């Protein structure tokens, strides 16, 4: 008791000092750019690109990843045989690990790929002596085998299904062999190594889409040593040859990617008309990546993200609904920042290669067996109103599955039948369905993959619109894994789904209702229509043109009539960039971190 005053004084002093030091630390950190990097950047001219992740990645093994957050990281750490031009539209394939675009044989069945000889995997303990070795044709064939292995890839095999000689058979063999499948004895007959840097791919039939999957992140090239060394841990220990390598990997913290000095890529020297004037060719011919580090903290809430952006601690940021209302507006000419923000930031928008749609479970005894009910819902929903009220106009109503920038979308299809909101027709269809005015119709349940405010408000919007014709909608908000389990097992009535292009071709979207792709594949509705399937198979390997578009029109008409899915809208990405960010152009097919440049002096000045 007698000693009490001294410890209390010491305690008080400690508290004061701690608070004071904390305040100093906070001040230093905030003036330095949030992640504590920018003061260093200003001193040694290190270029740091500060971005943000909205959700945590799930799996960094290229063949196992299927979520956007994972794909964004994988595509920065690994490289693919082919890639897409950063600037040119429509999207064009360009060589990446390949020296040039592959040459096709006269019959169009065999492609010969010549790989670059200067590509090395990053240094890693899985290699002898820890030094990354040169990437070769064996790595490509090994990676494609992993992609085709039924035990590893349950989600994305459909990208290459049915057109590479021996690949489907290989997949069947791996299924039989289980996890012990030996790639040394199991071969894909259509894939042949010619020499260390050359391989051929033989198709079963001419296919203009055959090269597109080779640019998908699922077909990133991985070294066998890393897979064998890390085993199950490989999905957390990426070893690639991409533009960046991992400096720090924290799933729910900050991921730091640092420049891979051995990366071979250079900034493109050509672009679309207007790109030069927009300053997008200022870095032409420069070695990639243009920044030294990319910092990717996980910030799930929209508001902290926006606050950091406004303080200059994040370089690029997409809009959420609430901040868009506060900072931006839309008119006939497009999207604009309000005057108070226009001199600080720049707004960017473009067209996305994605589609949103309602999925009806065709095996459900009520919704799946009652076409008129599905049609009634399609007539009753108010999609333009939804885009305007719930998405600030950042979207376009769609009538086919194919996003507008892709050849064969509704821009090319004439006299398309469409569901526009029509309450009278919705009521007629309800009568036809046996539920006049909704009488006798039990509540319909929609499955949602999360319980965020936006998702709940989206449900409330649709519920109100359907209530106008007497349809009662209920929601089941759940975790993503519970959602996947429910949908994959067919234990649902309706859900809302979206699809982003694996490659820019209409086939990638019409396969969403192709019978053999039934869930757990991408055909979540479980729709089975032999006539549709035949048309899909006919169109699949055809070149774009009137003949193919005529088939697409027939397929769109069938989907209009049967409504296994009700296509709703496509998202228009609208984002902001700090003025010190250079070379930013929206690209839906590749992650553009490697092309972005930073004006370090301006950033140092601008960060609060």
């Amino acid at each position, binding site marked *: 008791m007698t000693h009490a005053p001294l410890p209390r004084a010491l305690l008080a002093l400690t508290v004061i000092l701690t608070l004071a030091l904390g305040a100093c630390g906070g001040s230093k950190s905030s003036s330095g750019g949030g992640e504590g990097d920018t003061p260093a950047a200003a001193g040694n001219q290190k270029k740091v690109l500060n971005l943000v992740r909205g959700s945590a990645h799930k799996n960094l093994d290229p063949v196992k990843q299927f979520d956007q957050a994972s794909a964004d990281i994988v595509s920065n750490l690994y490289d693919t045989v082919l890639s897409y031009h950063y600037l040119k539209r429509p999207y064009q394939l360009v060589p990446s690990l390949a020296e040039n675009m592959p040459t096709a044989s006269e019959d169009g069945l065999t492609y010969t790929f010549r790989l670059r000889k200067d590509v090395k995997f990053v240094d890693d303990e899985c290699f002898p002596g820890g030094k990354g070795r040169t990437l070769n044709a064996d790595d490509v064939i090994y990676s494609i085998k992993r992609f085709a292995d039924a035990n590893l890839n349950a989600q994305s095999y459909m990208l290459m299904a049915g057109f590479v000689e021996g690949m489907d058979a290989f997949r069947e063999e791996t299924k039989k062999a289980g996890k012990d499948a030996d790639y040394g004895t199991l071969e894909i007959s259509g894939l042949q190594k010619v020499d260390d840097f050359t391989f051929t791919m033989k198709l079963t039939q001419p296919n203009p889409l055959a090269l597109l999957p080779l640019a998908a992140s699922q077909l990133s090239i991985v070294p066998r040593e890393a897979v064998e060394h890390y085993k199950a841990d490989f999905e957390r220990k990426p070893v690639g040859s991409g533009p960046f390598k991992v400096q720090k990997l924290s799933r729910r913290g900050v991921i730091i990617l640092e420049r891979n000095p051995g990366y071979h890529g250079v900034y493109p020297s050509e672009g679309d008309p207007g790109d030069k004037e927009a300053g997008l060719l200022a870095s032409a011919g420069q070695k990639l990546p243009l920044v030294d580090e990319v910092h990717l903290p996980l910030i799930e809430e*929209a*508001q902290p993200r*926006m606050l950091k952006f406004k303080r200059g601690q994040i370089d690029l940021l997409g809009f*959420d*609904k*609430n*901040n868009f*209302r*506060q900072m931006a507006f839309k008119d006939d000419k497009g999207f604009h920042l309000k005057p108070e923000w226009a001199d600080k930031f720049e707004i960017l928008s473009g067209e996305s290669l994605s589609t949103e749609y309602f999925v009806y479970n065709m095996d459900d005894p009520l919704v799946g067996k009652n076409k008129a009910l599905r049609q009634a819902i399609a007539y009753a929903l108010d999609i333009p109103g939804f885009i305007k*009220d*719930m998405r600030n106009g950042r979207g376009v109503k769609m009538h086919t599955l194919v996003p507008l920038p892709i050849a064969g979308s509704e821009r090319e299809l004439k006299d398309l039948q469409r569901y526009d909101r029509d309450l009278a027709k919705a009521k007629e269809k309800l009568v036809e369905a046996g539920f006049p005015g909704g009488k006798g119709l039990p509540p319909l349940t929609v499955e949602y993959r*999360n*319980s*965020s*405010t936006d998702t*709940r*408000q989206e449900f*409330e*919007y649709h*519920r*109100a619109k359907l*209530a106008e014709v007497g349809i009662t909608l*209920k*929601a*089941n*908000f759940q975790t993503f894994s519970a959602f996947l389990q429910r949908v994959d097992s067919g234990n649902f009535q309706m859900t809302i789904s979206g699809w982003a292009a694996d490659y820019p071709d209409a086939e990638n979207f019409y396969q969403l209702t192709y019978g053999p792709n039934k869930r757990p594949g991408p055909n979540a509705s479980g729709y089975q229509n032999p006539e549709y399937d035949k048309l899909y198979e006919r169109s699949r390997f055809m070149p774009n043109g009137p003949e193919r578009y005529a088939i697409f029109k027939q397929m769109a008409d069938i989907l209009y009539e049967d409504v296994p899915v009700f296509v709703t809208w496509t998202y228009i990405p609208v984002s902001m960039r700090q003025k010190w960010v250079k070379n930013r152009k929206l690209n839906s097919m590749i992650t553009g971190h490697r092309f972005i440049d930073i004006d370090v002096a301006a950033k140092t000045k601008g960060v609060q």
Partner: protein
Amino acid sequence: MAERRDSLWRRAGRQLMKRRGVVICFVIIACYLLVALLGILGLLPDYQERVGDSYDPPSASFALMLGTDIFGRSVVYKILAGTKTAMLIGLVVPAIAVPIGVTLGALGGYFGGRVDAFIVWFFSVISSVPYILIVIAISFVLGKGMLAICVAMGTVGWVGLCRLVRGEFIKHRHREYALASRLLGAGDLTIIFRHILPNVIHVAIITASLQVLGAIKSEVILTYLGVGIQDGSSWGTMISDAAGELVQGIFWPLIGVVFSMFFVIYALNVVGDALRDALDPKLLD
């Protein structure tokens, strides 16, 4: 014994009625209960009906007194719907938790030995898991919505009461009146429920009044976290929406819901404290 019990209740009643603040709080709670009752009878206005444009500011009419939400729905109507949800949960959860807590506490405290050891082990296990986490876990298993949330909170919320009642029973089981009853041939259950329980029931009443409060707050928190009431008729949903609305300068939905919560929680706190003061024999003069 009955005479003493009656005098305790009567005295408590007199004491409560003397305090004007407590009476006002009783009236406030009665108003909230009335709203809940009207809601159950379907007499509240439809909160899903559109009464104006998106985010209309407050104006003179009743429906627009607190403006509208993103869909043009009346904030007042939503608050009334939320009141029904909150009060229902506030009543149902103690209705589940109190009987469990009282029964287990009484059995453990009275019998002691292995029965008591098992009950202590059981509530120690449950209380070792943070309340919100265990409620979320149970809600995930049972599915979402009113029933799940009530069952989840009710099956977890009895622990504190069980402890208190067990302690009281340990004190009372060797008192003269309990021993006398046994000598006169009364069975264990008779002694527990007819003789000891009436002497400790005030503990349950005080705890239940505070549990109403806890249940209302927990529902709001759970719904805010996305595991509670899913159809929009909850204060938690309105608070969750407000996070984005405040960015746009739209403050009226939050103001409305905050005051609605404040009044009922304040009133329940005051009444809970007053009940404790009035009923706890240790605090009596």
